[in-house]
């Protein structure tokens, strides 16, 4: 039974995983490089790391190292994007993000993008580099419809379930379910008045004096987060919780102005991309482009994203999406919520139709 859960609960093909690899690497190139360039301005007194490598080294990271790690990360992600030495690129991307984050969180605050960071290392063993990649071009025998690597998706779903459960447990064990605690209200006030985030959703929500509303938010948040772990046991329930999560994150965005896009990219691992029916126009446009670049040497293909990332690190000193004035994180949050609503709707509506027919 455990074998069936591990190897067959998420029957995703190499093709599905390869599309996810390209999407993941694209988001990471656009949104996650460079990271931590502000460490240059951080005075030593603010170096107050949690238990981590930074606390063992007990010294801030020289800025040249921050730049070097960013360059190596850009190289890894560029290689991941084109699928060149994919396994090495995947593992090094995770290691480099963890190293950078170790010092980014050295002022004492951890930002919990760990699921996004772990994706490449886990998926390194999935075969996500064996389609739509340079690696695939070099191999003769590849079955793009194989689902052998889908156990990594189960592992990723377990990591997601455990991570969300920890958040729910922290709330459950510190009084969120006590009637009259209004924990969401309390945290919203701190976020609004102390941290200084003032989204319009918070302005609106803080007008609500109905205590049942705030209590319901506390309970639903805890139940949703704790419920994520048992939901891991079946693909259907896990997809249901991922859809809820997408809607949850848009709520957090609207009320707290916390754009938690990294988790949404991580949830995306469970989507069967090759089964999504695209409008004919998209392959019609893409096929000639892909045919043209298919013959390019790997170095040429690597150079394009890598040089863009170098520009982001050394010239723009901000990630590519910011340079392009595209709020990709927010866009992803709203898009994912729309997909979540559509998915939940598609799960509920056929049942109702069936019931109506029976009646």
């Amino acid at each position, binding site marked *: 039974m455990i074998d069936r859960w591990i190897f067959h609960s998420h029957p995703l093909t190499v093709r599905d995983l390869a599309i996810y690899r390209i999407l993941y690497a694209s988001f990471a190139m656009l949104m996650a490089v460079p990271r931590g360039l502000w460490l240059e301005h951080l*005075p030593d007194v603010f170096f107050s790391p949690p238990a981590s490598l930074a606390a063992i080294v007990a010294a801030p990271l020289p800025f040249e190292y921050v730049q070097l790690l960013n360059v190596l990360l850009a190289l890894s992600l560029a290689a991941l994007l084109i699928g060149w030495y994919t396994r090495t690129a995947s593992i090094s991307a995770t290691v480099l993000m963890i190293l950078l984050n170790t010092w980014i969180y050295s002022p004492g605050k951890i930002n919990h993008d760990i699921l996004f960071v772990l994706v490449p290392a886990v998926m390194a063993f999935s075969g996500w580099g064996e389609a739509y990649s340079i690696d695939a071009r070099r191999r003769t025998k590849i079955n793009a419809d194989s689902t052998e690597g889908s156990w990594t998706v189960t592992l990723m779903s377990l990591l997601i379930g455990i991570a969300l459960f920890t958040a729910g447990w922290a709330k459950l064990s510190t009084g969120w379910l006590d009637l009259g605690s209004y924990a969401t209200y309390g945290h919203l006030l701190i976020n609004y008045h102390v941290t200084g985030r003032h989204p319009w959703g918070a302005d609106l929500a803080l007008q609500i004096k109905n205590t049942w509303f705030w209590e319901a938010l506390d309970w639903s948040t805890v139940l949703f987060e704790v419920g994520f772990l048992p939901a891991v046991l079946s693909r259907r329930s896990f997809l249901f919780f991922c859809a809820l999560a997408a809607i949850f994150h848009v709520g957090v965005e609207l009320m707290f102005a916390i754009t938690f896009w990294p988790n949404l990219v991580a949830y995306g691992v469970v989507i069967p991309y090759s089964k999504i029916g695209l409008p004919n126009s998209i392959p019609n446009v893409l096929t000639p482009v892909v045919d043209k670049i298919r013959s390019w040497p790997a170095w040429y293909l690597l150079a394009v994203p890598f040089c863009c990332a170098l520009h982001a690190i050394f010239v723009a000193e901000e990630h590519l999406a910011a340079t392009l004035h595209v709020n990709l994180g927010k866009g992803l949050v709203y898009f994912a919520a729309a997909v979540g609503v559509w998915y939940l709707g598609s799960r509920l509506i056929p049942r109702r139709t069936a019931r109506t027919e029976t009646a």
Partner: protein
Amino acid sequence: MFLAVLGLCVVQVDLLYRVGEPYPALLMPGFRGSGGAQGGYAISDRAEAIFVLRDGGTARFTMPELFAQFPISHYGDLQTHLAPYDEQAPIDRSGLRYRVFPGLHAGKLDRAQPTNRESLRQWMKQRASELLPEAEVERLEVVWYRDTHHFLSGTRQSEPTGSFTLDLQEPQS
């Protein structure tokens, strides 16, 4: 692999209770406790930075304005470096956790150390010159307030709870 993940989870829970939240760890934001909300009101602490100028004038800034060059998620932790504190209070660095992690919470624990105080003074001087390019700044006063937010009336009461002062003039040799 799956068993290793479960094993690592046990290790991280152990670390969590012994040394606080480690990094990396498979954890999501806990938002522990009620955020100061209880029984119809919520309490939050807020700080305001006041640069006192040489001509006696003052310039006030919120913490988000003061820390604008850093990510917003760090403001809450950064402002604890500007909280009132007792310079004579003993620093407890005993226990295995400080032997394994000698830099654990270093900046917060060792605030009174001359090198850290000087580091803060230099950064604050730089920040003052960016925020007030024309002014000669004498010192920084950070005033802390405790805000009580009344749930039903939507009103807020503030009372000062303490202050922290940092001389920004060059020490006389």
